């Protein structure tokens, strides 16, 4: 979230699209209700299904799965056509006036530079024109035909309300009603909050779905504002922590990147990380990358990281592909190229697309290790459970190790929530039987591997042997020890900004004190400040909230720097005055920035210095046009899902997102609408949390059995009554489920043709207290977002018929 949970109460309009927050985040949803009850906010829900979120909405509008960009680009067009922009904000705080290089264009659904063979773009023209002074050229009048504003107008021109109706199946009058409401927040004293989740990310153009709404929010001046923002609601209590700490194959902690193979030396690596400002005087905070990186290497390798060995740069693995994402990993495993897999706290057999592929991949491995507090289907992938898991155990030789772990209530540590708050928690009880914490298991594993390397040597043992391991009990590092390491500490006497000496061996106050000369160590720079000399900031529990702004600065700790609303400098006009008193977060008092939140800005940088509020960007302003930073285009464009009931009306020849990677076998398994006529989508249910709560009887009572949801019309066509068994299948698999026949899903009229939606919930499997069932992943295609490879779980094709109950094996 750019903002945070409690801030939603200040919103005047809340749009839930690409998510179902009442069901997936019922506790956080209290703030939406608070906004409605106390702030007279209006709630808009745009979803293929009339969800429980829609049940409390002021306006609900249906949409065909996977067509959000068409809808949102049309909202952008509406705002531009009706001149509903926060002009002063847009002009000062976005790149609307930046001139784009000659040659950039968009035609037949493709941006300039497309290579069909590689499914990738040459992004050379997706850049600003650079002037003789070395800075990007800007036309403040916005009249230049190649300025971002003009290009944006041109780009969204085709997205009319009529086209929305034809593509999305969203009724024109509903669409316009929503546009009118959204447009009311273009004035300085009204804001809109965008709440989204996996409903936007689970698409082959997931990142661009989010971009499309970001453009809307920028034009309305709703970023950095009280009650505004782009708010990603995370699906796990600590999934924000996962991304912050860089648990991706291509990332290092704090959103730094793992080196590519071609970056042989540290100098090569740093050459792409200079982040030279694109406009005069801009902060471009990533210019400090070297300080964060060197401090990370010092935390990781301690004394072994020296100036002479480029801070142990050679110890880091170098990527030979963009990323070893899960889709690639299981593609390799299917070919027998992965012999072992450590599965820590997730259930890939039921989570990753194309379950048959998962089963085949696991069957080809020598071993898997499952670390989990609960039974998972993955650990039992080799067992025969009749139709629910039809395998021949004799044919599978994979060895499965199950290591029971503690659950969240049995260990201590911090959880990073959607608000970016790090909240410390304590163990409520001892772990049962042999269960050990994930930390202890990983530490023991490291020590044993290290011992083997010490004994037997190896090709390159140094990165293992030299890992800094300063913990009191070697095979059981304490969470507070790790938290101190993540915060960062001094290795020698250093001077802070005021010139005062911080002696060696002290916790740093924040990332501003990190250095690139090896005198500081820091495990994750964005978390720096969480555990200082003042103690564990994450354990703070003072909910005092000055000014009733929902900030409560002494409750836990938020990254970065305990800042609760990102880009909050943009809550003031260029002169440093709040856009509106009721939305006041901070202001310039003549010598410094003061207010309720920690300024996301130099605390003493005067407004007349013209430093933009988007300090991480070399432009200093927000990007309506994202240059070459995304693989699939500098503007979001409508692409159909890879399996769609409709050809792309804006570019009929293009299937899916042209920049998404898809492997040959997976491409061959895509279905066509003539065989698979129904648009399927998957989702979570409020009664369950992933695959945990099906093990809890209380939750099993509330939602005991797998089902699919279909409209009354489709049910009538197929002769299905409520509670009947139906079979649903795609080219990749077949499942059986009870039918929930509902008025909450209606056929969508898309380009004159009725499209039926089939809703398939997650959560069920063949272990636990709930009745045995399937998941949507038996059916979903193996293709992901062009930028981040998040699989397309939310839009694909299926067929459906009435059937008989599944067969279970004889005990």
């Amino acid at each position, binding site marked *: 979230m750019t903002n945070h949970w409690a801030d939603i109460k200040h919103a005047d309009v809340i749009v839930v699209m690409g998510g179902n927050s*009442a*069901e997936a985040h*019922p*506790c956080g*949803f*209290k703030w939406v*209700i*608070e906004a*409605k*009850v106390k702030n*007279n906010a209006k709630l808009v829900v745009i979803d293929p299904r*009339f969800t*429980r*979120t*829609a*049940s*409390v909405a*002021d306006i*609900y509008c249906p949409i065909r799965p996977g067509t959000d960009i068409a809808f949102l680009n049309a909202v952008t067009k509406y705002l531009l056509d009706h001149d509903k922009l926060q002009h002063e904000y847009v002009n000062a705080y976005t790149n609307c006036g930046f001139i784009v290089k000659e040659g950039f264009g968009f035609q037949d659904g493709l941006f300039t530079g497309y290579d069909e063979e590689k499914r990738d773009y040459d992004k050379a023209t997706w850049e600003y024109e650079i002037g003789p002074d070395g800075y990007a050229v800007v036309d403040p009048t916005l009249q230049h035909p190649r300025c971002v504003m003009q290009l944006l107008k041109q780009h969204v021109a085709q997205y009319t309300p009529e086209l929305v109706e034809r593509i999305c199946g969203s009724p024109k009058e509903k669409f316009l009603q929503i546009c009118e409401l959204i447009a009311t927040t273009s004035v300085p004293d009204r804001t809109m909050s965008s709440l989204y989740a996996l409903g936007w990310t689970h698409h082959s153009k997931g990142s661009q779905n989010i971009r499309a709404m970001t453009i809307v929010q920028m034009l309305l001046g709703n970023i950095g504002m009280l009650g505004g923002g782009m708010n990603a609601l995370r699906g796990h209590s600590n999934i924000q922590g996962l991304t912050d700490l860089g648990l991706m194959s291509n990332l290092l902690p704090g959103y730094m990147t793992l080196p590519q193979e071609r970056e042989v030396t540290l100098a090569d690596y740093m050459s792409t990380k200079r982040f030279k400002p694109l406009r005069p005087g801009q902060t471009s905070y990533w210019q400090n990358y070297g300080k964060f990186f060197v401090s990370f290497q010092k935390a990781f390798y301690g004394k072994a990281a020296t100036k002479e060995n480029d801070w142990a740069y050679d110890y880091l693995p170098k990527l030979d592909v963009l990323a070893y994402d899960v889709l690639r990993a299981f593609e390799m495993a299917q070919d027998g190229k992965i012999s072992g897999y450590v599965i820590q706290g997730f259930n890939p057999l039921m989570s990753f697309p194309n379950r048959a592929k998962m089963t085949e991949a696991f069957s080809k491995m020598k071993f898997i290790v499952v670390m989990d507090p609960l039974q998972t289907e993955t650990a039992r992938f080799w067992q025969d459970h009749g139709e629910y898991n039809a395998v021949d155990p004799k044919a599978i030789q994979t060895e499965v190790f199950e290591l029971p772990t503690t659950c969240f209530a049995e260990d201590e540590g911090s959880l990073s929530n959607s608000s970016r708050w790090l909240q410390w928690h304590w163990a409520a009880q001892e772990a049962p039987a042999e269960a050990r914490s994930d930390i202890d298991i990983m530490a023991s594993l490291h020590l044993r591997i290290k011992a083997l390397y010490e004994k037997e040597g190896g090709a390159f043992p140094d990165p293992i042997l030299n890992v800094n391991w300063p913990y009191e009990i070697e095979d059981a590092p304490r969470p507070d020890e790790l938290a101190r390491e993540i915060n960062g500490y001094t290795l020698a006497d250093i001077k802070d900004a005021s010139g005062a000496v911080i002696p060696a061996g002290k916790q740093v106050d924040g990332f501003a004190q990190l250095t690139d000369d090896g005198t500081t160590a820091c495990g994750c720079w964005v978390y720096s400040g969480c555990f200082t000399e003042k103690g564990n900031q994450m354990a703070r529990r003072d909910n005092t909230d000055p000014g009733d702004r929902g900030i409560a600065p002494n409750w836990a700790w938020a990254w970065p720097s305990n800042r609760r609303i990102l880009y909050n400098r943009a809550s003031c006009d260029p002169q440093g005055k709040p856009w509106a008193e009721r939305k006041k977060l901070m202001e310039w008092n003549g010598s410094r920035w003061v207010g309720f939140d920690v300024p996301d800005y130099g605390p003493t940088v005067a407004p007349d210095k013209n430093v933009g509020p988007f300090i991480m960007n070399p432009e200093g302003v927000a990007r309506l046009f994202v240059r070459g930073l995304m693989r699939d285009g500098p503007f979001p464009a409508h692409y159909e899902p890879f399996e769609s009931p409709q050809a792309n009306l804006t570019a009929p020849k293009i299937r899916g997102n042209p920049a998404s990677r898809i492997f040959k076998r997976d491409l061959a398994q895509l279905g066509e609408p003539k065989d698979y006529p129904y648009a399927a989508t998957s989702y979570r249910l*409020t*009664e369950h949390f992933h695959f945990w709560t099906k093990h809890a*009887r*209380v*939750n*099993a*009572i*509330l*939602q*005991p*059995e*797998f*089902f699919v949801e279909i409209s009354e019309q489709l049910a009538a066509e197929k002769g299905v*009554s*409520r*509670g*009947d068994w139906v079979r649903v299948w795609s080219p990749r698999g077949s499942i059986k489920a*009870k*039918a*929930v*026949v*509902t*008025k*909450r899903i209606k056929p969508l009229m898309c380009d004159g043709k009725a499209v039926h939606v089939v809703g398939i919930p997650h959560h069920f499997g063949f272990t636990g*207290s*709930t*009745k045995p069932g399937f998941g949507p992943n038996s059916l979903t295609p193996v293709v992901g977002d062009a930028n981040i490879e998040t699989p397309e779980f939310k839009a694909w094709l299926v067929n459906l018929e009435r059937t008989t109950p599944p067969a279970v094996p004889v005990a």
Partner: protein
Amino acid sequence: MADYTSLDIVQRSASTDQPPTVRSKTEVAKLIDVSRCIGCKACQVACQEWNDIRDTVGENTGVYDNPHDLSAKTWTLMRFTEYEQTGGELEFLIRKDGCMHCTDPGCLKACPSPGAIVQYANGIVDFVEENCIGCGYCIKGCPFNIPRISQEDRKAYKCTLCSDRVAVGQAPACAKACPTGAIMFGTKEAMIEQADHRVVDLKSRGFDHAGLYNPLGVGGTHVMYVLHHADKPEIYANLPNNPHISPLVNFWKGGFKIVGLASLAFAAIGGFLHYITAGPDEVPKSEEQEAAHDAEGYTK
């Protein structure tokens, strides 16, 4: 928090000796704002956990309602209704069902077992299981179809409004668990005031018939609803439009009780008079022989 703690009994089933004094009469109420409810079922979880009751794991029958009905182990339940307005606009109405804690409780009135059902001064209607004889008359007496007889111990169960929590100044478990504040708890007066605010808000959003459900046919209730369509309570999974205690119960505990007693007396007097006038009834010898023959047949 106000002092809700009085568990002084003001009414007791099948008893003539009603308690003489009551210390305080602050009535409490739970207000369920249907327009804020998101159907997350946290109230069902809280109810199961606080009261330590677990129903069986059922099956899906094509709806979101689970369990499918109230039972001796399910005292509260979200009931989901897909309601299409005349203009075609869909509404997903979600109502938390459970005991309404009537001011004039039909269950208590119908109950023939002394002290099996009581009403406290704060308005809560509670079942006292050790006094329950499992006759099920409370079910007949309830205009909301709430009490259920346990198949295990043949006793009647329903929501207690967490009288045990309320007695120590706590809100009911469901109200505490509700994430959106759809379930509120306080004095009845405060809840009515709260409801007034909500009704104003709902009317401003186009729900012209929004209102409070506090039906007078049962003397008002200590569980009340804010409804968007207070003119049509029946669309919320058959919430009764004008609930009242069945005339049969009123008759049984009112007029019929006197008639019943009178007829008992009449039968006794009649029997006595018959004895006086006709003497004892005698069995003829032939009939006794027949009976003995039948008995033999059985033993063979």
